[in-house]
């Protein structure tokens, strides 16, 4: 196991310079990982079955926060149906069940997480939040 497989440059970059950070008031889901303090809110503007915009806000470790940032870039513009499929692809990749669909794009850097079972929850937390948004849940 190699730590540099987990802490990839892309991940650290998204951690230090998060994209689409800051909420704008769309439907949102707030999730926490109380054991380590990850605390993430994901919001999405969904119109005509398309994810027009995704934003995030929160604090936590590099894996969780960067994953939120990567998620917003990977899934914006996708249809709800496509996003649901990619979320499941992401879960399978993280669990080490497959190598990850190339449509996951930048999110493929989280492949290394599969070797660190204790960190799977960190990587998937923002994706779980979006998954719930797609099912129609909303904290408001």
């Amino acid at each position: 196991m190699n730590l540099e497989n987990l802490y990839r440059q892309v991940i650290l970059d998204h951690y230090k310079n998060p994209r689409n950070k800051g909420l704008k008031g769309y439907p949102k889901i707030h999730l926490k990982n109380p054991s380590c303090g990850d605390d993430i809110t994901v919001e999405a503007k969904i119109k005509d079955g398309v994810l027009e915009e995704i934003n995030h806000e929160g604090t936590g470790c590099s894996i969780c926060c960067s994953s939120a940032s990567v998620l917003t870039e990977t899934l914006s513009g996708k249809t709800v149906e496509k996003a649901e499929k990619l979320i499941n692809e992401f879960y399978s990749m993280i669990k080490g069940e497959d190598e990850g669909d190339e449509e996951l794009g930048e999110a493929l850097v989280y492949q290394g997480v599969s070797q660190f079972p204790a960190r799977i929850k960190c990587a998937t937390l923002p994706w779980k939040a979006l998954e719930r948004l797609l099912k129609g849940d909303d904290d408001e």
Partner: protein
Amino acid sequence: MLAVEKIREYFPIYKKHPRLVYLDSGATSLKPQPVLDKMNEYYAEYGVNIHRGVYELSFRATDEYDLAREKVARFINARPDEIVFTSNVTDALNKLALMYAKENLKAGDVVLTSELEHHSSLLPWMKICEENGARLRYIPLNKEGRITAENFKKALSKEVKVVAITFVSNVMGYRTPLEEIIPLAHENGSVVIVDAAQAVQHFRVDVKVLDCDFLAFSGHKMLGPTGIGVLFGKKRHLKNLKPVFYGGDMNQDVYFDHVEIKEVPYCFEAGTPPIAEAIGLGRAIDFLEEIGLAEIAAHGKALYQYAMEKLSGIDGVTVYNRDADIPIIAFNIDGVHPHDAATCFDQEEICLRAGHHCAQLVSRFLNCAGTLRASIYLYNNKEDIDRFISVLEKTIALFRKLDGGK
């Protein structure tokens, strides 16, 4: 220093994981073989219920269970009938809060506590206060993050009915000056409930000298099994409490419309208790006494100081408690989230705790997103500290490199 190599022979986990550097004893201690053997002896040789059977095996089990209570009592200089077995500190403190508040706490009363509390010492009272109109008040910490007698005095007032306070902070390793605080509380007419979860395994706790009203600790942090905890209460206090749980074994006569309960402490132990665990805890106490609490404390202190010396030469680490009273190191790698750092230690089989440690108000006090915690116990040695320091340095270097060599 203790002869750690010899001590480790008693801990089978090192046979399975010879490279293990276990620095998370603050969460739970490792378990020595004699404790496991003792529990196995109960299950294998007289594993039947207690206080019920009129047959010999049940007498044997009951004897062993009662003997465990006597050992616990002697360990903290209490009487056996002042010892209530619970499942852990959380269980003990919740039960006590419910029982005590019901009879004694009313709207306007104050429960005085601190930001250093483990959630299990704080939250039961927080919920009770929310419900019955009593108020929660915090003893201000000094700059270093300690509870002082002076600040305690300032926070004390006539309304303070309960002082719910930790003996040793599970994050900072600071020992609360209870020897000064308890007399002040008693002069004020307040009862003092001590969370001793991080205390009894590190130094001699004498409830008579301390004069605390209640005190709780867990078996699993002192080489004993999980699932067994202890609530000590002065006899006169225990006699004034009414059980919150009713059922088997805690009653002596049952009628159509009322029940007569057993005497203290049996009335607080409804149902089949954790028998094997209580017996295992008794053996753990013997084990600790055989090695000696004073020796364990001196060993921990020496390793803590050794670690502090090494840490002071490392750039990029913040240590939050350079003067802890028990061997706990609370720290962070600058710019690295504690959970990220913990993974790096995990790769080298070094077990550290990362996060809030069930004491989130401490993280708030330190103004950080949690901390890393290395807690030292009798089976740790200098090599453990050396490996810990070496991985710490590697981790700092790794994140510097990833951050673009800054």
